[in-house]
């Protein structure tokens, strides 16, 4: 079980969190014309990297904040965690 540092609450066990997938995916803007391909990429296509991955976790049994976790998918090492508003370019 992972031990995840929630930037709002501190270190908590994984069972307080829900996984939320790739944190680098950006939703296309509303009312913008986009191709089928672009939309398909956004809804379905995800990379499944081995190694560093920035991903979303939802502190569902804690502060209910979505956070970003930089984790190594093969070793589970967690390098850093961020609040939702961080790392938005």
């Amino acid at each position, binding site marked *: *079980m992972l*031990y995840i540092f929630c930037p709002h609450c501190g270190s908590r066990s994984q069972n307080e969190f829900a996984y939320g997938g790739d944190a680098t995916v950006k*939703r296309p803007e*509303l009312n913008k014309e986009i191709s089928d391909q672009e939309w398909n990429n956004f809804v379905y296509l995800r990379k499944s990297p081995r190694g560093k991955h920035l991903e979303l976790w939802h502190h569902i049994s804690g502060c209910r904040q979505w956070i970003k976790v930089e984790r190594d998918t093969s070793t589970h090492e967690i390098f850093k965690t961020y609040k*939702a508003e961080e790392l938005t370019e």
Partner: protein
Amino acid sequence: MSQDFRLDNIGMVNRNKKISFTFNGKKYFGYEGDTIASALIANGVHLVGRSFKYHRPRGFFGVGVDEPYAILQLERNNERDPNIRATEQEIFDGLEVKSVNCWPSVNFDIGAINNFLRMFFPAGFYYKTFMWPPSFWYKIYEPFIRMAAGFGEASIKHDKERYEHKYEYCDLLITGSGPSGLASAYAAAKNGARVILAEDKPRYGGSLLTSDVNIGNQTGTEWSEKIITELKSMSNVIVKNRSQVFGYYDHNMLVMSERISDHLPKTQKYLPKQRLWYIRAKEVLISSGSIERPLVFGNNDTPGVMLSSAAKEYMKVYGVLVGKKPLIFTNNDSGYETAIEFKKNGVNPLILDTRKEPSSDIITEAKNLGIEIKYSYVVVAAKGYKKVKSADIAKISENKKDLSNIENIECDCICVSGFWTPSIHLASQSGNKSEFNEKIDAFVPKKSKQKENTIGSANGKFTLEETINEAFDKGYEVSNKITENNNKVSIPTVVEKKSSEHDKFWCVPLPKGKSYKRFLDFQNDVAVTDIELALREGFRSIEHVKRYTTLGMATDQGKTSNLNGLQLVSDIENKVVPQVGHTTFRPPYTPVSIGAIVGREVGKHSKPTRKSPMHEWHKKNNAVFVDAGVWLRPRYYKQGNETLFEASKREAKNVRKNVGVCDVTTLGKIDVKGPDAAEFLNRVYTNAWLKLPVGKARYGVMLREDGIVMDDGTTTRISENHYHMTTTTAQAANVLSHLEYYLQLVWPELNVNVVSTTEQWAGAAIAGPNSRALLMKLFPNTNVSNEDLPFMGYKEADLFGIPAKIYRISFSGELAYEVNVESDYGNFMWEKIIEVGKEFQIQPYGTEALSTLRIEMGHVAGSELDGRTIPHDASLEGLVSKKKDFIGKRSLSRSAFTKPDREKIVGVVPLDKKTSIPEGSYIVKDPKAKLPNPKLGHVSASCWSVEYDNPFSLAIIKDGKNMIGQKLFAMSPLKNKTIPVEIVSSHYVDPEGKRVRA
């Protein structure tokens, strides 16, 4: 009653307390503190089971977790516990155990014929022997193999025992209370660290319990007792015996199984049987010790052949002799300690040492005691079937290839020592890649990946002095990183006799003309020939060899067999062991009962049970409850001998005719607040929300980004910036997460907050033509006329002094209202509604009637919004805005969602107006078509229409809107029913929606 093999003046069992137990139906006795193994050996019993494949007789090989043979089945309180190691299970009064894998009895076992048919059971036999003809597999081969294989039988009854879970945090977890565990725990605890020390056996001390050593001028046992007593008295230390740390998981989380009452006769009512500890440790010291390695020779699986350290422990801890004519077969000094212990207890051993001219203090001591020693000697083969009777021994040449002077000597046990294998399982589980240590011919942990260090003999340190020094240093060093107390204790001096040099010899060659079975893996019956065969057949990777031959599998996980197997593979391949590598060690280190893993989360405890504030009233009024997600909801209120069908019909009819009241507390409720709330809802829902006036409700549908309907419900504008959203009972939690995702990550610029208010409101749906009349009496000061409170209207009102909210919304399709009050007033509201409603013939109705009402109205629910449907399929396309964008809109233009014959919801009525259509039935054109019959769709929900008094179902079928009026068939292969049906509109009752607006 005397015990032939019990020693009088040695051992740690309690001689004042006799305990009787039965083994295979026969009564035996032992003493408090005995294991099944020690008590049986004391009684001269060595045959306890049959082997896995060949059904060869099985005795005892080890004395603890390493035991590969003596796996028994325990029975108590009419419950079975399979896979019990006789070497670990302590006896208690009334204990009943029996052998497994033998029939009809352990003494006469039919399956032993496999031993003579073993040419048919070579490595990987199940991949080749039983392949032909293919049809035989299911009917003959598999049932036969299944009956013959496996250890024990799990009970199919509900396990009444109590198991618990516990979470614990510490600075330092130490696994094993041998010399290194004790020393490091002491050093760390004295330095102020929060320490957990776990020991899998009942007694602390590990090897100190049995070795003849001195620490700080005390015997090993005295020293360990002193340390453990002091540790137990410290508030920063948790010391646990009978506790196996069996798994090392991510981020320094380890799991430990504590056997709390496995050794007690009757479990006290609230005392758990076992407790699973989830331990998050800042640092871990693995002091799990080492396991003695067997030597490989002919028939080395005969009962009476066992590890020399086990023989010693049976004497020193249990006061039990494993034999009276022992043969010690060793390649190192450890065998001498056992021999000396035998001698001290009046038994003359014979030592066969594979080494030519070894010398050390302990060898000198053995010689001085007059123990007979033969150097460069080996055991060629054990003789005897159910117990060792003699052994063929021989002199071995210097190159260890040739045998000479073969002779047979009498003996009743053979104690083997092939040196020691560090238990690196936990380190390996943590991600530590081990390295091969040439000096000890075994793998040791290398570089830590997580915060762990391995110490003592688990780290390949086989002298006590090294062990103690390393443990004190590590205990201090690791704890000081955390506490920074700089409090260092002094290290005691150590006296030990044995040296640690061993002979690299491990497998006795076969004498000319003999083909003895030489076993490597004792639990899985893997012999030298099996490995040889696997390699001949082309298996190279050690992982493949393992799976093909079953070497190192099952409950044993290769504790005794692993290294000898690797040695053999590398010998055949002309490689060295590190090139071959070892297989992956996986948790659990020892078997863990499923009960312990599940803990208290059994049956009704597996998830919380939520009850509405009106629950007690429902109970008092004969409600029959149903699980709705985590909620308990009344399904129907039983009157007299009514069936579910009769009751739900009565309740639904009463709603259509008079008025009914339904507990709708379980609906998900979310408060949406903030200046951008309207804009947010406009993006979340498919329909338009910007112009919803205050005091009005609107029905909305929300999609996932892939266009599939996620949930539906009504949302009411309570005030300018405050909306009250309702969700379905099942989706409440998901919808909240969904909203939070968009607010926090996608549109953080929106100034909106959401919070669940499900628990804050109790809700009652009042539905039926009499509902307004009832409302007028409930709220005499509020104008509830159709003009003042129209359909989809909202009002705050006063219910006999209690603030209430009235939403004019309807799921039943009747004139209806939902009244909400704060949860604490829920029961008050409910009782008032029932009381005042009497004159209007009110009846409460449950979920079954609720379903009936919504189905015949064609209102969709979870069975239609099943994660596969888009708004069109549920006839909700009218709610999809063409003007604005919203979550999932872009997906709706995908070709599969826009094709002309896209599935759509319809109503289904049986032609005979009598036969109910099972939910899940297929709708087909021709019931006799060739299989697979092309299906048009499926029946999602069925009810008995109370309006028309005939069955009615909803179905989602291809090209639904053009199918209305067609005669088709509903087929249920499950119920073996084919029903001719007519397709009708899904709005079966009141299609214009006049009633809700009345």
